[in-house]
């Protein structure tokens, strides 16, 4: 019981002591590799990226057009019905400015990231991507943006076939 407990267990170690090997530790490097089956929906999506197009799936029951595409409608719990191309333009739903890389190391030049609601998809349906060719001060909620694609010969059928989204000319 909290007021009755006088001492709590736990021996603290300083991170520097761990880094510099002053505390004995066993080390391990895990080998955990995967080849995930991409499946029907994402195979087509990634293939279309090579063509510079974004493909979505439509559910005829609720009428929603969703991307990333899936072969099932999660709201109706039924199969989705057809492939629909959506535009490579959209508006910024939310964004932030990162000084951190994936490994938590510090970036010199911040990167801008955003959720972009795509034109042609249902309202609120967005994808995550980077923003480019703009200053961090100029980014705004609701701003129109357009995908900047890699040249066709450099595309591999991946989300990174889009380099980033840039401000769209209005």
């Amino acid at each position, binding site marked *: 019981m909290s007021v009755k407990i006088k001492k709590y267990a736990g021996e603290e170690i300083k991170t520097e002591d761990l880094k510099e090997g002053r505390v*004995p*530790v066993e080390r391990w*490097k895990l080998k955990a590799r995967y080849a995930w089956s991409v499946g029907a929906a994402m195979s*087509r999506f990634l293939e279309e990226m090579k063509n510079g197009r974004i493909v979505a799936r439509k559910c005829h029951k609720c009428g929603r057009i969703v991307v990333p595409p899936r*072969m099932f409608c999660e709201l109706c719990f039924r199969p989705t019905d057809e492939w629909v191309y959506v535009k490579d333009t959209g508006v910024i739903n939310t964004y932030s400015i990162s000084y951190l890389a994936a490994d938590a190391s510090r970036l010199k030049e911040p990167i801008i990231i955003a959720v972009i609601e795509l034109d042609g998809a249902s309202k609120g349906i967005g994808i995550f991507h980077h923003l480019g060719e703009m200053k961090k001060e100029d980014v705004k909620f609701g701003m129109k943006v357009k995908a900047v694609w890699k040249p066709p010969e450099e595309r591999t059928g991946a989300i990174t076939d889009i380099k980033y989204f840039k401000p769209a000319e209005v």
Partner: protein
Amino acid sequence: MSLEKIGDPREIRHWMGHMECDYSYTYGVVGEKFFKEIKENAKIMGTKCKNCDLIYVPPRLFCERCFERLTEWVEVSKRGKVHTYTVAYIDVDGSKLKKPIIWAMVEIDNVHGGFVHKLGEVEPKDVEIGIPVEAIFKEKKERVGSMLDIKYFKPVK
């Protein structure tokens, strides 16, 4: 089930990736003392539960049966018996081992537990359940305080 499926095997794709990180495991309050004794003195230590009259090897902070905190350390024998063994012919990647590895559960004499370790200086055909074995340590200067400080267990008379 989905209404459209992949029909052309050339359209099947796989996405490669991993879940790899580096890890660093502290030995814990009991493990630290255990490995210090191995490293410095080539001694095997256990902790004793008086309630259950058991000596745990490897040592534990607590008795898994009665949950008492174990504070009494005892030095135990380096000898034990093969409780069970196996001969491994393949490595972790599935490749055939050039020399099969003999693994054994070695029950250390008069304690609860012992070590799952390799047997050395013996051929598979000469191993039997119940044979006495002894821990063979690395030279002191090579010992770092790890399970690998015991090179293997070797049959003794």
